[in-house]
């Protein structure tokens, strides 16, 4: 076995990942909060007013990064679901299932901020626009995955079934997007591009991209924290989980004596 595969197997073993994720998660949460705060300041205070939408447009600094994350989380979940189904790696099952609620939350925030933005701009909380509708379907897909995962008793079988559903979903997401577009559209077009000229000014772009970075880091922090719990649940009978539990109990005893 060469060094890279060895490293990969090591990372993939539950106790190692539990330790590494535990070391990383608090830092990631902290960095995400700081970056998010800077991005919010840049977006809400420093960025200029929009000549058409006034200050109302500033919700994009939350709305757009969350929308990106909704899709990113689904892709992350699907990749892990694929690995879990093909190579039966326990850690991938846990990661896929840990990213589902986080992605669902981001999608939900996207829908809520979108409708808050829609009220002053379009004059309505909700309209059957193409992107809103496909975002709603995306939320339902997430909820289906979460629902299926919790409906099956055996944790590993549940993860495999939900992973399979996630993969069916990823085939469906582009179809839904296309069909809904064909059906009806009102949403504004793409305004931020990595390649070529963006349609919005630089003072608006940097907070947006920084916020996107912050949400990505937050996503991984949250997934790490969730998968640690998932790993403990799954491996409850194993030695390493018992050691972790005993160590925690020891800590608790020490603090209670102090």
């Amino acid at each position: 076995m060469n060094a890279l595969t060895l490293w990969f197997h090591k990372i993939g073993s539950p106790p190692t990942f539990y330790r590494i994720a535990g070391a990383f998660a608090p830092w990631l949460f902290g960095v995400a909060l700081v970056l998010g705060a800077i991005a919010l300041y840049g977006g809400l205070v420093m960025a200029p007013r929009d000549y058409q939408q006034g200050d109302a447009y500033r919700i994009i600094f939350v709305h757009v990064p969350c929308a990106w994350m909704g899709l990113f989380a689904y892709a992350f979940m699907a990749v892990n679901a694929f690995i879990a189904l093909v190579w039966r790696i326990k850690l991938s099952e846990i990661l896929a299932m840990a990213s589902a609620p986080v992605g669902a939350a981001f999608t939900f925030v996207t829908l809520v901020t979108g409708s808050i933005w829609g009220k002053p701009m379009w004059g309505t909380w909700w309209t059957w626009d193409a992107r809103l509708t496909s975002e709603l379907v995306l939320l339902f897909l997430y909820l289906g995955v979460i629902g299926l995962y919790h409906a099956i008793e055996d944790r590993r079988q549940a993860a495999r079934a939900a992973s399979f559903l996630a993969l069916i979903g990823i085939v469906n997401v582009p179809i839904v997007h296309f069909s809904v577009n064909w059906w009806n559209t009102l949403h504004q077009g793409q305004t931020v591009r990595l390649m070529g000229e963006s349609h919005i000014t630089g003072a608006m772009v940097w907070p947006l991209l920084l916020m996107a970075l912050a949400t990505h880091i937050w996503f991984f922090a949250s997934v790490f924290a969730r998968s640690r719990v998932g790993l403990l649940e799954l491996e409850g009978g194993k030695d390493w989980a018992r050691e972790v539990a005993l160590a925690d109990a020891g800590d608790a005893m020490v603090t209670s004596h102090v």
Partner: protein
Amino acid sequence: MKPGSTFGACAALVRRDLTLIWRRRGDALNPILFALIVVALFPFALGPEPDNLRRIAAGVVFVALLLSGLLALDTLFRGDYEDGSLEQLVLSPHPLALLLACKIAVHWLTTALPLLLVAPLLAEMLNLPHAVLPVLLAALALATPLLSLIGAVCVALTVGMRRSGMLLALLVLPLYVPVLIFGAGACNAAQAGLAFLAPLLWLGAGLVLAIVLAPLACAAALKISLS
């Protein structure tokens, strides 16, 4: 023991499923009654003005058939799972996807085809213009097998569960959205005097794709939930 030919196995399976359904032929009426009642509820809710009903007729018929098919999905594997023959099917030396394709085909023939036959009646109840009826029937003929195939994959995932009804709806309905959009879209376009061929062709393309892929996915899902 030497296993028989794959074709023989498929034929036996089809014959068995059809016999089982024929012995309980009263049950076959239930989806029709359900669709009839759902369609009858709309005039009560929206008022009896023919113009109103005419505008929504195609969509309502589509949704009624979709919901009725959703309720019928549960029977696809339920009986076989309970008496253990589903496990025998999975263990058989013949390709599981092919056997499942036969089961899905029989299920479509016995639950969706009768619905297709009463669709003109449903459309008439809602005053659908007669010129649109052929488009509606064509869209339903393409859409219902597609719905059965997609539904079969999801039902295979929930096969061991005791109360899977609501969960199944949550899994299946988001996947049904594109089918509904294209199917009902074709009818609405025809009603508005626009070109309706493109969505029908998309439905046909989706059906061809699903006929090839859905039985494979269904087999994989079944193996996961029976493992």
